[in-house]
């Protein structure tokens, strides 16, 4: 059998639940379907169950109830080492007693790949993450970003059908982080691997993902493309967690959500009228805080381009938006 010819696999979670020592559910009836070759993110605040979900896919944690499928194989009861996955950890988790080349070769060695082929594939993987020449260093002699690349090379060298990443860029500084985001996305597309990516950083998720599952308190609130999640949030939680949003309460506990940049400022006498309370210059845009007559506040973002009236604090303004830009939230 040619080990190298693995193609990306789909992943399916069917009502998967997990609680630790009988306390509240860390993961509560999570169902999701990741398509082959998809960049899929699990996004949510700290403690919402992202890591637990990923660890159940990897096999580090058993599920209490539910099934997990990879491709057309039910892996729910398959031990970790037989699930054939690659994984990048937040703390890198490199083998400190091994050289860079040995770290990368590890998965191939476990798969009994012939020596010559191991050498060749390790070389290629290190070239892919721009670490040629670092073969004989130990992890302790590398910078954080370099260790991150070694961890990535170790995971992709086995050409896994599924690659799991738990906040892999969390420990990097902003600049390096953005660069690695770009590189990881490139690499994922090149390799065509199915990637499940855990992050609590909404910008990162929006920028990189094909689809995002937004999690809250162990449950999935919404699954969709970055645009869907941003433009059409289904719940208050999603609307609030992703970006800035104005919530207009409706009778019956419902609410209407409008993004600040979707609101057009004009002369008083529009849908809503108010007074500019504060203005923050953001470079390309200006963010206004508008106090409505009933005491509520609205955020409005105006692009600083072309001709537009100069607004200052205290100005009376009218707020309007296209009906399609107002999103009815379910709860």
């Amino acid at each position, binding site marked *: 059998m040619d080990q190298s010819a693995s193609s990306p696999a789909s992943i399916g979670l069917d009502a998967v639940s997990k609680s630790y020592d009988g306390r509240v559910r860390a993961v509560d009836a999570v169902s999701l379907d990741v398509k082959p070759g998809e960049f899929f993110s699990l996004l949510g605040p700290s403690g919402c169950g992202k890591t637990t979900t990923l660890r159940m896919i*990897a*096999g*580090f944690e058993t599920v209490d109830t539910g099934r997990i499928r990879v491709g057309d194989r039910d892996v729910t009861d398959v031990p*970790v*080492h037989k*699930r*054939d*996955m*690659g*994984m990048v*950890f937040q*703390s890198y*988790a*490199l*083998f*400190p*007693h091994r050289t860079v080349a040995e770290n990368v070769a*590890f*998965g191939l060695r*476990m*798969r009994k790949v012939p020596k010559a082929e191991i050498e060749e594939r390790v070389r290629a993987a290190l070239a892919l993450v721009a670490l040629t020449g670092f073969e004989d260093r130990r992890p*302790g002699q590398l910078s954080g970003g370099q260790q991150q690349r070694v*961890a990535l090379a*170790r*995971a992709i060298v*086995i050409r896994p059908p599924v690659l*799991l990443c738990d906040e892999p860029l969390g420990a990097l500084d902003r600049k390096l982080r953005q660069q690695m985001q770009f590189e990881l996305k490139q690499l994922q597309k090149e390799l065509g691997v199915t990637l499940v990516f855990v992050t609590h950083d909404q910008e990162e998720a929006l920028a990189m993902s094909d689809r995002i599952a937004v999690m809250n308190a162990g449950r999935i609130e919404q699954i969709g493309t970055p645009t869907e999640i941003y433009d059409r949030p289904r719940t208050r939680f999603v609307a609030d967690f992703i970006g800035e949003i104005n919530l207009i309460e409706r009778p019956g506990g419902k609410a209407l959500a409008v993004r600040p940049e979707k609101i057009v400022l004009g002369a008083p006498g529009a849908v809503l009228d108010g007074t500019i309370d504060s203005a923050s210059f953001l470079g390309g845009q200006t963010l206004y805080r508008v106090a409505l007559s009933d005491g509520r506040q609205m955020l409005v973002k105006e692009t600083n381009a072309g001709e537009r009236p100069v607004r200052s604090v205290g100005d009376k303004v009218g707020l309007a938006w296209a009906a399609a830009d107002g999103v009815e939230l379910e709860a």
Partner: protein
Amino acid sequence: MSARPDAGHIAYLAVNGAIITFLLAPIAIITVFALNPTPYISFPPVGISLRWFEKFFSSPEFMGALWLSLQVAVVVLVLSMVIGGLCALALARGNIPGSRVLTAFFMSPLMLPAILTGLALFQLYLLLDIGRPVWGLIMGHTLVAVPYVLRTTLAVLHNFDRRIEEAAAVHGASPARVFFEVTLPLIRPGVFAGGIFAFIVSFDQFPISLFLVMPQGETLPVVLFNYMKFDLDGAIAAASMVSILMAVSVVVILEKVIGLKSYVKL
């Protein structure tokens, strides 16, 4: 430009110097006595000779005891590394109820005076009527040596990042392979550091050996003690020098051959 040495720094050097002198002075004195040819231990030395080393190395009694001590210490080294290492793994990883109490229990030989342990074992062997076999002596030494290995290995395990083992598992290593590829190499420095103590504890062991050796099979510290009761000459000092060199060689050899460099932060 040279910084003016300030009072604090001088005090620091003085205290350190005093401590080092205090620690090393006995060794210096032993060296002087071992090389001094007078037939009894005296000061100041009158010259330099190797006659006491000659006496030590040509005495079948000393040589037999040295050889026995070495053999026992090596067996204790191996046994305590295996037992201490496995115990540490079980206590740190095994999800054993009451593992804190058990840890304290295994460490307890360190808290008890060795003479009590020796006496207890002596009475136990008497009760069991097994005589005083060499393996009984080895067991006694191992009992007090295991805590050293246990402690150093537990320290390593305490700081062990288990994600490293998970990384091995997810990339295809079975539980057994994870152990041999990752866990063992990473705890090895801790086990060997404890092993060095175990070797020295056994090689140096007097109170327990005193109870458990047979007259025709005494270890070096017991033979030296008996010798000293009648003769106090340079042979004792020479024997001490040899013991010190032995201990140092074991440390150096383990360091060079296996490497005690730790990858796990302590």
